């Protein structure tokens, strides 16, 4: 069984428990093992643009905690965590001087990092797993939102085109293509000016609605906050259900709705006609 240190970050464990539950439910059936390290902290991304060195030290601490329990692969559920930890892991694996500098800081908390941990996004781990679909989701038309930090900037990330399309197709559901698909959720600007993600979400959800998608799927807790949790505040004359991809996958695999963080009504709607749950 492949063993990964599960990196939850700040948002998932508090505001996206359905995501965490569905990831755990799906992984346990696919031979993906998670090691939970309760002391993992913020990845450092939120402060990285202002305090790059401190953010790197925070990332290194998390990587070092994984290394200390003998796990050399870390998997993230949040795309911003993925990008930041990937960037940190790559810097520290290649730049001996920066590794030494970071270790001087880590010594103060009794840790040393040796640069051996690699970081993946959960979507990539699922992409490289085999799964068997038990329930028919072919009636569902799914609009995907990849999220910027899942595959930008390209110099840190090398992946097939539109990985979420492949993942959705493998559940048996149909992918809806729409023009604004690769647009950003604006979540990165939310704390400074909430109007930016709101305006961007309106444009995108309008597009998704016009292309007759039954639902919208994401692989990042922040994207989910922008499109899902904040959708009511946008004042749109329609609503678009937003699910985390592992919830769909779990449903297709025949996993019980409650284990995926889905209400009975949501599951019933998804399994019958698609569209908006009652």
């Amino acid at each position, binding site marked *: 069984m492949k063993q990964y240190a599960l990196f*939850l*970050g*700040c*948002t998932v*464990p*508090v*505001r996206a*428990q359905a995501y*965490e*539950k569905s990831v*755990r439910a799906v992984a346990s059936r696919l031979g993906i093992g998670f090691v*939970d390290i*309760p*002391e*993992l*902290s*913020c990845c450092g991304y*939120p*402060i*990285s*643009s*202002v*305090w*790059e*060195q*401190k953010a790197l*030290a*925070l990332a290194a*601490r998390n990587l070092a905690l994984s290394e200390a329990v003998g796990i050399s692969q870390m998997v993230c559920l949040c795309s*911003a965590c993925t990008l930041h930890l990937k960037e940190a892991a790559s810097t520290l694996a290649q730049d001996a001087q920066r590794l030494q500098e970071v270790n001087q*800081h*880590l010594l*103060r*908390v009794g*840790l040393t990092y040796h640069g051996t941990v690699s970081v993946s996004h959960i979507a990539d781990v699922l992409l490289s797993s085999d799964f068997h679909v038990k329930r028919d989701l072919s009636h569902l038309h799914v609009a995907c939102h990849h999220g*910027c*930090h899942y595959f*930008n*900037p*390209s110099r840190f990330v090398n992946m097939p085109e539109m990985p979420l399309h492949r993942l959705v197709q493998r559940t048996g559901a149909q992918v809806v293509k729409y023009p604004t698909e690769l*647009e*950003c*959720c*604006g*979540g*990165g*600007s939310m*704390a*400074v*000016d909430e*109007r*930016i*993600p709101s*305006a*961007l979400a309106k*444009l995108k959800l309008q597009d998704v609605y016009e292309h007759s998608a039954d639902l919208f799927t994401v692989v990042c807790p922040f994207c989910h906050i922008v499109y899902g949790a904040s959708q009511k505040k946008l004042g749109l004359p329609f609503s678009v259900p937003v699910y985390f991809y592992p919830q769909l996958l779990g449903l297709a695999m025949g996993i019980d709705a409650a284990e995926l963080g889905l209400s009975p009504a949501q599951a019933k709607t998804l399994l019958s006609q698609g569209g908006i749950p009652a």
Partner: protein
Amino acid sequence: MSRVNETALKKRAALCAYCGSCTACCPVQSVAADFGPRAVARCALFGLSAEATEASWLCAGCHKCDMACPQDVRPSEIIRDLRALSPETGRLHPVFSKQMELLIRQGRLYLVDEFENDGREDEGLPRLAEELPDVAVLLGGGEQA
């Protein structure tokens, strides 16, 4: 001390050919007309750092501009550098000092306390450490606001 200095920042901004590819693909620009990566880079080049820094806070960090730029200016890195200089120039945005404060206090942006852990346990999820004093050790020191 930040690794960035203003001379290096200007050198990078000077590579800009003013083509506007970055601003054309910027999602923030599409909904907030007074923001654009090209304008930020230009302001930085001409020493208008106060204006450039103020604009930099609106960036969502999507990196689309980096990939669009034919000159490899990486506008998002100019924005990041302006932000990195801001504690020294007294231009730090309060949202970022607040986030730093939260991380020093609780190690994560959202508090995980006993109540939250009880809720996690009810959902069948493992408890997380409620106190992360290591984070304060790593983040403490003179740099924050």
